[in-house]
């Protein structure tokens, strides 16, 4: 792992009291490789390592740590800081129904996350209603209705309506009548480069005036994370990120890439297929995971 690699790098340099330009060079190379192996984007890794170099050079090595551990400490602190220093909760302020939109690529976990969020909010005494706005994927509406039944949360769906825009505006009316204070809108997976479908999302945004547009991203996403996230953010303006499938063994470097390129907070992580598998995001845990 990285600690072992760095300790090896510094083995020949022990007894030195300071981190210098020279002994840092090789160490930072190992850090950059670790980040790339963890799927952090090429440019993000480069910038990150440059920032670490700035911070590290000239630093006194604490007597309680090896130089390798000292570098890891700096890296961990910086990575944790970048990932988001404190948990940012959902924005639920305003006149009901509060709208939360879930968007992202195909298969990232939006529909499942919608139900997890609904269960999470219901536990906190909210009255959420999910909206089945994916009219494209076979049995998508079926899927959301089934999940809604599992957690006893209402689902607004219209099997005869082919326009997500109409479904969403009707859902607003339904929520008001039905006494739901939060609407969780599940949208169809789409490519960030699909102009028509991205415009559809913009229309849904106008109709829903959502408090949150959550970008749902797969923790195992590679270098492409930067392209996708920046496109969704620039076209829609996302307010937060949910990183799913964290129960696998992906290092999750996409988290840093997405955070760096959008500046938006990671609010939750998905940790399994069951509907209670939604956790608050802890930047320090994510940092250790990325560094491996």
């Amino acid at each position: 792992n990285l600690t072992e690699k760095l300790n090896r790098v510094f083995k020949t340099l022990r007894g030195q009291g300071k981190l210098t330009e020279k002994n840092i060079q090789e160490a930072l190379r190992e850090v950059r490789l670790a980040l790339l192996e963890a799927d952090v984007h090429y440019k993000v890794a480069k910038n990150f390592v440059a920032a670490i170099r700035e911070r590290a050079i000239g630093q006194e090595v604490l007597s309680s740590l090896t130089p390798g551990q000292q570098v890891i400490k700096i890296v961990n602190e910086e990575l944790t800081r970048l990932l988001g220093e404190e948990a940012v909760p959902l924005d639920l302020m305003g006149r009901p129904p509060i709208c939360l939109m879930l968007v992202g690529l195909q298969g990232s976990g939006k529909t499942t996350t919608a139900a997890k969020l609904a269960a999470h909010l219901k536990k906190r005494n909210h009255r959420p209603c999910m909206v089945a706005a994916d009219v494209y994927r076979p049995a998508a509406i079926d899927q959301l209705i089934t999940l809604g039944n599992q957690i006893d949360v209402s689902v607004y769906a219209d099997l005869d309506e082919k326009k997500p825009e109409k479904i969403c505006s009707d859902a607003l009316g339904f929520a008001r009548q039905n006494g739901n204070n939060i609407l969780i809108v599940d949208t169809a997976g789409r490519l960030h480069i699909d102009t028509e479908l991205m415009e559809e999302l913009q229309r849904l945004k106008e109709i829903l005036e959502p408090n949150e547009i959550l970008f749902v991203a797969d923790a195992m996403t590679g270098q492409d994370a930067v392209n996708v996230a920046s496109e969704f953010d620039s076209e829609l303006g996302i307010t937060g990120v949910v990183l799913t499938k964290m129960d696998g063994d992906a290092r999750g470097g996409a988290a840093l890439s997405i955070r760096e390129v959008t500046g938006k907070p990671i609010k939750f992580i998905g940790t399994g297929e069951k509907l209670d598998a939604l956790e608050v995001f802890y930047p320090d845990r994510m940092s250790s995971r990325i560094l491996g």
Partner: protein
Amino acid sequence: VLGKKQIDEDLLDELEEILITADLGVRTTQELISSVTEKVRRKELNQPDKLKEYLKEEIKNYFFNLPAEIDFSSAKPFVTLFIGVNGVGKTTSIAKLAYMLKNEGKEVMLVAADTFRAAAIEQLVHWGEKAGVEVVRQKIGADPSAVVFDALTSAVAREIDVVLIDTAGRMHTKVNLMEELKKIKRVIGKKVAGAPHEVLLVLDATTGQNALSQARLFSEQLGISGLLLTKLDGTAKGGIVVGVCRELKVPVKYIGVGETLDDLHPFEPDTFVDAIF
């Protein structure tokens, strides 16, 4: 890259960036860059415009002798098992392959062995109708091995040409779920000698280096005979298959390039590698 007069540090950095951002991964990229550096050192390569061509050939070598074709007539019923982690495109890819085979005149049967996920069976049933092929299914929560067993009994009796089996997405790290998959494979083998004839691991082109861990574990536990790379219609290059082929020597059989029934193509290394650059 082509504007350079000589192969220097900057050019190698540019190439490193192209390979890494295409998801080839650190190890494969280092191997390729070392190979280039060595050729330059031995004066066998000194023109920047030849560099890209050299790299393309080196990458294509990783796919060498890994045939993309599947001979669906080599067994009857020819049984293909689809496996992979959650959300990568297994169910949709089965639909596409079924459509392709049906248009080649084959009698195809789909098996809805994902008895776990909400509306998974309904999703496959819908696709079966669109593709014009039958789907064998039971209730949600049924034992997937039992569904497979019954489907194969029927396939043999009715002389079906090709059976495509859909399984639930699962993390390769979950021991009990991998055991479930192993049991499905055993049941297939008991019912049809020599089956499954193909075990296709479905990988999402947007996946990063975790694809290697997925491939390793599925291969170790199940044995895989081919890869199916989906979502290449996005901006991801899918370079992860280079690392997987390099290490496991498993061929890429098909690529998925969209969400409709025609969006499945046989894998072509030349086209794939060109797109990386």
